[in-house]
């Protein structure tokens, strides 16, 4: 393969699809040449996750918010550390970015920031598979990205 990406943007948040994206990214990357930029998105639906709670006092709501933040932080840290270790094992440099928002919008924003040569994402999660309902809007990506997009199968 003659195309060697200098900067590869990988959207990865620990799902099966993300693991396939990781494998595809490693297949494209070249040790000591490619820098992997790992994007971990905390989906924006979490902003509405206190729902219509109205009975609790501020103390209880704050305790809940702190608890959720810690849980999300722990999840993000685990994924970020794991991917960094995999990259290191392959001689790839890795920068991690954690963003909060709508996945496709976050990816586009980071792509504008880091100007990748290649963007790699996982396949859409098959229907019925358990997980967060927060999908990457492929049309938005196709319209907004200037770099090639690779969707792992």
């Amino acid at each position, binding site marked *: 393969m003659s195309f060697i990406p200098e900067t590869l943007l990988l959207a990865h948040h620990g799902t099966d699809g993300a693991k396939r994206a990781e494998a595809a990214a490693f297949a494209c990357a070249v040790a000591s040449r490619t820098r992997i930029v790992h994007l971990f998105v905390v989906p924006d*639906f979490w902003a*509405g*996750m206190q729902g219509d709670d*109205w*009975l609790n*006092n501020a103390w*209880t709501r704050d305790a*809940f918010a702190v608890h959720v933040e810690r*849980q999300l932080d722990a999840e993000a840290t685990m994924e970020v550390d794991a991917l960094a270790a995999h990259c290191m094992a392959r001689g790839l440099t890795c920068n991690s970015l954690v963003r909060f928002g709508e996945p496709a919008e976050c990816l586009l924003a980071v792509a504008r920031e880091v100007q990748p040569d290649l963007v790699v994402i996982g396949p859409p999660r098959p229907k019925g598979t*358990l997980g967060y309902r927060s999908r990457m809007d492929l049309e938005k990506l196709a319209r907004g990205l200037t770099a090639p997009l690779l969707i792992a199968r």
Partner: protein
Amino acid sequence: MIYSHKSPALLIIGILMLMWGWLNNAGSLDGMQGWLHPGAYKEHKQAVEKHAADAKAAAEKAAAEGKPAPEAKPMKPSKFDGTKAEQAQLAYILGGLFAAVGVLVLVIPKKEGHLDYYAGVVPGMAFIVGIACAVRWILDPMFANWGKAAQPTLGWDFARIMNLNYIILGIVLGMIIVNVFRIPAWANNGVRTARLFLKTGVVLLGTLYSAAELAQLGALSVVMIGFFVLGSVWLVLLWGPRMGASNSMTGCSPSGVGVCGVSAAVAASPVVNAKAVDIAFTLGTILLWGVLCMFTFPTIGQLLGMGPVQFGAWAGTGILNSAQVAGAALAFDPHGIETLKVAEIFNITRVLFLPLIVVWLAAWYVKREVGAQKVDLGKVLVAKFPVFVIGFLFMFLLSTMGVFAPSGHYQGKYFAHEQVKEDKLLKEKDLAALQAMLPKVTKPEETKALQDLIANRKLTSREQDHVLKGVAKAAKDDKAVKDAIGNANKAAWHDSKIIRAFRDWIAWLFAIGLTGLGMQITVASIKQAGGKPLIIGSVVGTIKAIGSLIVVLLFVKEFV
């Protein structure tokens, strides 16, 4: 942190409300108001014509007798006038307040502090208040008219059957705003104050109960909630591990499914160390169920012919999420708040159970999970105690002491006494309407209640009043029967002005609060419903809803 936004939005809302008040006062909106309230407008026009004819006749009579024309008496304000005046008054007060604060928001420099915080909150409050006003004053009567207009074609009044009144419409509009348009940045902080309106509404509800009523409803709610809430929690704790759910997932679900929905799950999640995915699945499930229940419960209640006590007890026990309990109760009975009174007692009982359930779950989790941190149970009990319930009890105490109205008000003192004046007794046309209704009722207690009313020309007991409310509901579009029963009810109860005002405020507070809560229900969070919490929540929620319906229909009398 700076909370306020330099936006003219608040000033614009204020000016729009002031204009609404002024246009109503000037009569410029009479055409629109007449279209929105056709019945009241027709009566108003007839009263105006009659008044003019009487004045003309009096003038002609005076002229014939060679006397000077008598001074025209002012016309007694009609229901239509009352509706306009009420809207204008509220619009002036709120519009003036919002416009004044709106100017301050634009003028005062942004600087961290209390002033900035309040300047950041008021626009959002005005946003939900404005929407609630628009829904109550325009959309509610509009949908009622459309429902009636579509009845000949559809064969049913869709607005009445689907309970498309100001409560449901407010919540739905709130949900549309947050999911389709998004809440504007200047309103974001204030929209969250919806819970303040609701809690204030619950506190004020304390003024509407008699001691006997509160004791009886309280006892009923403790039995129902005790059985169904503790039963649901126990069932989830038993079933969750057998389904292979983790301890944290099992610990997170029962509070939400069993006690008071989202609020309970929010309170319990930290103590059972719920994982993010457990929280997402559980809250999504509760929100999904809550919204479904809010639409289906009132319709089922109407179809089963339930009264306020039965429906309030059922909604208060069977609906998963506490916000939707208030919504369903008001959707079922939007123009009186009898159902809300019952449902909220159940809600309060649920909330009082919450700290105990959280302690139970914490103890359960610590016992089962290796390495789980011990929780200070006393601290949890104190932290989760719903302080606003003290406000409710305080208002109840004040009203019981006769601060707001004489104690007779709560008992309906004009049932047994011979104190009802002749002009308050039912008139011939009322009695004729009731006589015509008599062959149409099927239940023996309804026949007896109607016969007694016709014989006495007034209500003689609270039981009779409750039975006749059901008759009035069944009369559907028979206005004469509804009016006759309404007149008899008014003569017996002699509502105090202060209590009437409290009822109005409570209805407004809940309407505003629920509109704001609607803005906090996102489709993205509902979509997270899934996994084992969805299965557990659906099964336990269905068992609770059907079980409580059966118990209510079998054992709860309409009269408490």
